[in-house]
């Protein structure tokens, strides 16, 4: 098996908030091999984005990685000097953000903003050459009239076009890894498919690895090879995509799948997971999913924290009773 390109290892990230600290990410590990597509799925606040931002040193000021490592090509990004991180960001790792409305600087042209990343990492690239490269990039991501578009400001772009420009920006320096943080969440459904196609195409052409952060299982099914399911700052299940959809061994994953609308079943009401995601400032002791879990039934084991245990080939689940889900299809009542 090839060496992982990025190996996140037991990352713990905390945020200072009024009246204490919140542990947003609590010992998350995941590997991405070169060229691979990994989906990270979970509800809002489950720590998906924070995990990635922790690895890249892009946490906001009140956030801090308190433990763990993020090895990228043999170097630990956690604790790496800012200057070194700057050399990796944008050059070896490209980012696509969720909201293309706010992710662009409103007072700089789109072209300038892409060229800036090119010139940062390609010493000696002239302004003119960078400009020409920007036009090529915009054409590659399917933006019509790229010469004119490069000179326009973000507000002159539609949401979909802006996200295309964002992808052009992320792939500008041919990074080995692209992290897409909910790249389609803020877009119209019709545009979502186009953007996913584009991301897939870009990934194939540049042979980059792709981490797809999403809460959309449809995106996971369509795009990814391996899936990491996160809940309340932890990984609860990880497996290849087929296994997750057909043989999920964690009640949370099952709950997510069950709440998907399906074309072949007519239901009066979509079954949702009961209860609320836990407050990260007051996580229930033991298994964080316990209060919402149908397997709990007051069993004592659920009061201790489950480890991420093997549940099959390349399949791990953080549930004490994952064996009970073996063979069962569909959701758990």
């Amino acid at each position, binding site marked *: 098996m090839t060496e992982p390109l990025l190996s996140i290892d037991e990352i713990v990230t905390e945020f200072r908030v009024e009246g204490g600290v919140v542990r947003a990410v609590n010992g998350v590990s995941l590997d991405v091999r070169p060229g691979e597509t990994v989906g990270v799925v979970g509800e809002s606040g489950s720590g998906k984005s924070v995990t990635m931002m922790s690895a890249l040193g*892009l946490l906001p000021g009140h956030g801090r990685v308190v433990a763990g490592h993020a090895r990228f090509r043999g170097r630990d990004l956690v604790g790496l000097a800012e200057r070194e991180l*700057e*050399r990796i*960001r*944008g050059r070896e790792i*490209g980012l696509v953000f969720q909201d293309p409305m706010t992710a662009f*600087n*409103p007072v*700089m042209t789109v072209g300038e903003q892409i060229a800036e990343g090119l010139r940062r990492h390609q010493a000696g690239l002239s302004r003119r050459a960078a400009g020409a490269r920007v036009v090529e990039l915009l054409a590659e991501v399917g933006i019509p009239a790229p010469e004119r578009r490069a000179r326009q400001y973000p507000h002159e772009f539609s949401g979909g076009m802006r996200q295309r420009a*964002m992808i052009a920006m992320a792939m500008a320096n041919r990074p080995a890894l692209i992290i897409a943080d909910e790249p389609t969440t803020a877009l119209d459904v019709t545009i979502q498919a186009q953007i996913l196609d584009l991301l897939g195409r870009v990934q194939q052409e540049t042979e980059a690895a792709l981490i797809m952060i999403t809460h959309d299982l449809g995106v996971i099914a369509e795009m990814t090879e391996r899936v990491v399911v996160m809940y309340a700052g932890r990984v609860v299940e990880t497996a290849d995509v087929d296994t997750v959809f057909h043989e999920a061994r964690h009640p949370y994953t099952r709950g997510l799948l069950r709440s998907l609308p399906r074309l072949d079943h007519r239901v009066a009401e979509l079954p949702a997971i009961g209860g609320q995601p836990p407050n990260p400032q007051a996580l229930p002791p033991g298994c964080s999913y316990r209060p919402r879990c149908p397997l709990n039934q007051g069993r004592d084991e659920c009061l201790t924290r489950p480890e991420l245990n093997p549940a099959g080939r390349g399949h791990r689940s953080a549930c004490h009773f994952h064996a009970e889900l073996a063979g069962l299809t569909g959701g758990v009542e």
Partner: protein
Amino acid sequence: MVAYVVRRLLVSAVVLVGISMLLFTLLQLMPGDPVEMMIDPMSFSGDRAAAIARRREQLGLDASLPIQYVRWAGEFLQGNLGFSYSTSRPVAEVMVERLGPTVRLMGTALVIGLLAGIPVGILAALRRNTLVDYGAAALSLVAISVPSFFVALLGIYVFGLKLDWLPTGGMNSVGGGGLVDSLRHLVLPAGILGLALAGPYVRYARAAMLEVLGQDFLTTARSKGLSRRRVVGRHALHNALIPLVTVVAIQIPVLFAGAVVVEQVFAWPGMGRLALEAVLARDYPILLGFVMAIAVLVLLCNLLADVAYAVIDPRIRL
């Protein structure tokens, strides 16, 4: 843009007519009668009431208010702002004479205020909740709340009287001149006015910068591997300056009005002192000229703010 500016100027002209009517009326309502002051009761002998009536007729002050206004407006449009009651000199001439010194003082004060206030405010935002931030907040609070006449007197006492470093009044030394001499006279009044301006600028700059620092596009900029210096200097600063330009432009007339005190303390021969003298002498034509000038300035500065906004923010199209 040009069409917008033209349209705004036309609207401004209408507004100006309204303002002038209002001011004209208000001035007539002010207590005190300039004619009474012209005919000195101590030295005048004879029929004083008749003399006052005669003078009133000469000056056209016997006519009704609307007629007086129409006459004044007619002359105003021809560039004649009337004549000073106290010196009989043309108002326009007196005002132009006083405008230069005021612009010199205000301009320098504005530059000092911007250069001192905006960098400190930005720094305070970047070092939020540190000693730098608290220090900046304390200094700006002092600058905002201590009245400028007090700071002016303090400045005169320390730098003029005790240390004898700087002149304490006027624009030039008597008989003297030259650039250095002028600059030395400018230091205290412009410095004090400038620091008074810097107080609020620190606040505005800090708030504007904090607002920008939380924005997503800065994370995008960092995700491209840009240095912190470039992220702050290029991406954050440009966005933070947008609201500041508006604030500064709109405040220029306030600065003009605030100069009255400082000009008085430093015997600066500017517009502010002219206005004060005019009030004391019931010199209505001068006063009317002054307030009209302020009105024009307010309208122009608002227009300037909008145009500047459109120039630095590509999202705004006029």
